């Protein structure tokens, strides 16, 4: 169907159709077919036949029509029970949220207690206390399911209330009631809808279950549950008699589930306009690698023509090459989405499973890792150490620091417990973790952020790797702690000769620590230069220049100069054109820039730049 703008998800459509049919049957059933369902015939306990599609019961009544007519009774009861549960539960949950701390704690405990009983037990108890009958069953099931609604409302409302947009709305003078109706309710509605649909399905089952036990509708009225009960007694004479109500219960539950799930998907603001798949693929993979440095010490890590792709084939990193020499500190600087972290993860063979990658050459300290199909050898764990951005999630919170530090040594270096402990303590002391012996016995949460990051560096240093990959190691830290961690990395580099690959978005951090810097933009290295040139602001690529002009760190040194924002934004992986990815934002762009990807061209100084305009200018100069 073309021309339909807001497409309903298929599952919602199926669910809605099913639900509509059920509602129609529930409404029309008793009006149209009551007579057929109640008509007594002589054919008792017949199997399915042309005249009676599901056969007949003990009194010769048609099972199919009885199931159809019973729909209203069951659906009515289930709807009423779900409505009671949802209304009462949501109300209670909301009350608990808005109450004071004492009531909130008490309310939470009571809900916990109620939730620990299966709802059917609660419903049974209530029904037994009240006398059996339709009304008491509805009330009992409503009460039994309301704690679930209360709990969910409570949790959701609490989390939404802490959102900044609710805070800001209050500051703007939006009244309490309006905040609830405009911000809180719409944002907690989808999960509540799912619960309602699940609750309805469960109510149908519970209503039928209680009726099956004879606690609900009393003869001569009937519903699916009582039909099922009598059908079960005649199961051997006419299986159809049990099949009818059972199938009805199943289909109703299915419809409720489909509608609930479908609605949620339909209501998600992100779901309505997914980025459409682009058709075009970037044509020619660029041939970088011209810039791989000749001579010097043997590299501890080198990669050539590394490409990383998403499962849909979109390329995130486009054939980049990189070497880290022994004892060298190399920085990769770039903004989010530039592929800097992916490159680092690929070196350590730690890319997320769903990403595909390939490289002409990938080698870390003599270990060949270029084959994506081959698992990296265990030895890799001792060839390189990794320090991640978030020190709070890189340790296992349930294990003591000591256990985690000594693990590597005992597994890979086959050290004894005591040896490993001694080495770990000395490493902690070396990374300036205060009272190292005490820290070994502590859990990660007992350390401050800075201490944890130092401990993480100690952990990375334990197997004496030749290379440490540090991915934004100081981004989560305070500036004073950052300064210390950077000094620490420098010190490790000088005393142990460990090479470091530092990934950062902060050009200031990179230029204060690194010897050589790669600037990445949209999955490519656009410039490679020595730190001296960067400090002198002697940069070639227009992007590097723009980055310097936009960062207040360096701008503040030029008296009174304003920051120069970079126009536009970095292209997403799906809308990259065939040429230089920076061309649309580049002040120097010429027509060729949008057509051909500029190769990374090495200069005599050892620096390299990927820019048509710059390369042409350099040729003119020489």
């Amino acid at each position, binding site marked *: 169907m073309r021309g339909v703008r807001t497409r309903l998800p298929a599952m919602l459509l199926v669910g809605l159709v099913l639900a509509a049919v059920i509602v129609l049957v529930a409404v029309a059933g008793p009006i149209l077919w009551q007579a057929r369902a109640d008509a007594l015939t002589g054919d008792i306990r017949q199997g399915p036949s042309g005249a009676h599609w599901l056969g007949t019961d003990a009194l010769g009544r048609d099972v199919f029509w009885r199931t159809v007519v019973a729909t209203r009774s069951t659906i009515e009861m289930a709807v009423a029970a779900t409505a009671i549960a949802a209304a009462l539960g949501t109300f209670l949950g909301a009350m608990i949220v808005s109450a004071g701390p004492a009531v909130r704690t008490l309310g939470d405990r009571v809900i916990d207690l109620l939730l620990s009983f299966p709802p059917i037990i609660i419903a049974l108890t209530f029904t037994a206390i009240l006398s059996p009958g339709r009304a008491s069953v509805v009330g009992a099931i409503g009460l039994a399911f309301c704690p679930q609604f209360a709990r969910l409302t409570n949790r959701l409302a609490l989390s939404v209330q802490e*959102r*900044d*947009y609710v*805070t*800001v*709305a*209050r*500051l*703007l*003078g*939006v*009244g309490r009631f309006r905040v609830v109706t*405009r*911000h809180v309710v*719409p*944002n907690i509605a989808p999960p509540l809808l799912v619960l309602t649909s699940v609750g309805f399905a469960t109510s149908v089952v519970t209503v039928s279950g209680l009726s099956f036990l004879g606690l609900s509708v009393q003869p001569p009225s009937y519903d699916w549950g009582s039909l099922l009960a009598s059908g079960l007694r005649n199961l051997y004479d006419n299986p159809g008699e049990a099949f009818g109500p059972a199938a009805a219960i199943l289909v109703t539950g299915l419809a409720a589930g489909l509608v609930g799930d479908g609605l949620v998907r339909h209501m998600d*603001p*992100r779901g309505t*306009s997914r980025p459409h798949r682009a058709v075009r693929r970037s044509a020619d993979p660029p041939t970088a690698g011209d810039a791989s440095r000749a001579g010097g010490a043997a590299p501890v890590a080198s990669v050539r023509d590394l490409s990383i792709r998403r499962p849909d084939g979109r390329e995130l990193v486009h054939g980049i090459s990189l070497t880290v020499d022994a004892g060298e500190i190399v920085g990769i600087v770039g*903004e*989010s989405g530039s592929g800097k972290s992916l490159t680092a993860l690929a070196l350590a063979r730690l890319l997320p499973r769903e990403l595909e990658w390939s490289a002409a050459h990938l080698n870390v300290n003599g270990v060949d890792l270029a084959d994506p199909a081959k698992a990296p050898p265990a030895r890799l764990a001792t060839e390189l150490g990794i320090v991640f951005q978030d020190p709070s999630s890189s340790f296992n919170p349930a294990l003591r620091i000591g256990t985690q530090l000594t693990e590597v040594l005992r597994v890979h270096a086959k050290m004894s417990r005591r040896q490993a402990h001694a080495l770990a303590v000395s490493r902690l002391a070396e990374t*300036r973790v*205060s009272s190292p012996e005490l820290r070994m016995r502590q859990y990660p949460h007992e350390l401050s*952020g800075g*201490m944890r990051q130092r401990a993480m560096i100690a952990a990375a240093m334990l197997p004496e790797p030749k290379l440490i990959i540090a991915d934004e190691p100081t981004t989560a830290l*305070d*500036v*004073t*702690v*950052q*300064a*210390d961690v*950077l*000094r620490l990395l420098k010190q490790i580099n000088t005393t142990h000769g460990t090479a470091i690959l530092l990934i950062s*978005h*902060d*050009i*200031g*951090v990179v*230029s*204060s*620590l690194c010897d050589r810097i790669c600037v990445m933009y949209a999955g490519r290295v656009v410039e490679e230069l020595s*730190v001296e040139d*960067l*400090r002198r602001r002697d940069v070639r690529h227009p992007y590097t220049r*723009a*980055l310097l*002009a*936009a*960062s*207040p*760190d360096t*701008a*503040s040194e030029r008296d009174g100069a*304003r*920051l*120069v*924002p*970079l126009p536009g*934004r970095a292209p997403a992986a799906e809308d990259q054109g065939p040429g230089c990815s920076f061309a649309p934002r580049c002040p120097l762009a010429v027509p060729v820039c949008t057509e051909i990807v500029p190769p990374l061209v090495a200069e005599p100084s050892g620096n390299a730049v990927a820019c048509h305009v710059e390369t042409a200018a350099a040729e003119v100069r020489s």
Partner: protein
Amino acid sequence: MTHTDESVLSAVGVSAGYGSGPRSRSVLHDVNVAVRRGGTMGIVGESGSGKSTLAQVLVGRLTPIRGVVRLDGTDVRRLSRRERFAARRRIQLVPQDPYSSLDPRMSVERTLAEAIDPRGRLRAGAHRERITELLESVALDGSAAKRLPHEFSGGQRQRIVIARALAVRPEVIIADEVTSSLDTSVQAEILELLLDLRERLGLTYVFITHDLAIAQYMCTDLSVLYLGTVIEQGTTDVLTRPAHPYTELLRDSRPDPSGRSTPAAAGGLATEDAADPANPPSGCVFHPRCRYGPRTHEDRTRCAVEPPILADLLPSRERRAACHYPIKAVIQDEEGP
């Protein structure tokens, strides 16, 4: 408080915290901050220094335990209900995270309409012109109005948040780490936008940041917070020529792109992380980390016992520092022959 007369917003002797009873947590201790009309007061400090708590107090979200918040010299507690509603709208907050500060289910248009008309008294279409104007003022296209927040990048979202704050024609905007989740180039855009708006609309900012370079770039005045107390205050030369050892430590901790070695590295005392805010040290709260304090100068035992008060150093230049032994260079330079 010499500034009180011309200051549009000020916190006077404010102590504040969270919770009550035995589990309460005190965060700010006797903080004095006066925000000059048309100026930008930078609040800098490390995490746990109480920067965001101070923002909450200034914006009226958190009632101080002691002390008062003054708006145009009037204690906000003395205002009537209606006056307080109006006062609240004069001070707007731009929170840090542009992802959690926009309701994901409300279009930009509805978000702005709510800010213009929080009680929903006018019909929905009445604000169209104003909305277009607001979007233009933050350099967003009018077509943005119909879209939902998730369709925008982080920088664009932050523009929308700023537009929403401008919708009520505020006098003071409290910007709480507004660029810390943005990329460098986008950060520059937002900072320039804020500077531009300050000029065009005559706004006053309270600018909370952990990034000293940004503070120096954006602000006219600075207050340096450490463990909930203001330890130094003055114009932005606080950062270029600090009088308090902590401010000096902050300055020297900045990654130094020129590659010169940093003086603080020599002392090595910076390795002590900030103390636990719940359990601050005795005397001067900074003394365990101070390179001029009792750790290096044995005669300076006073630091560990007697809390220094925030005192004027240079009456002419509006510089205050809470230190028994402020760094002399600042004073001598000013008073030199």
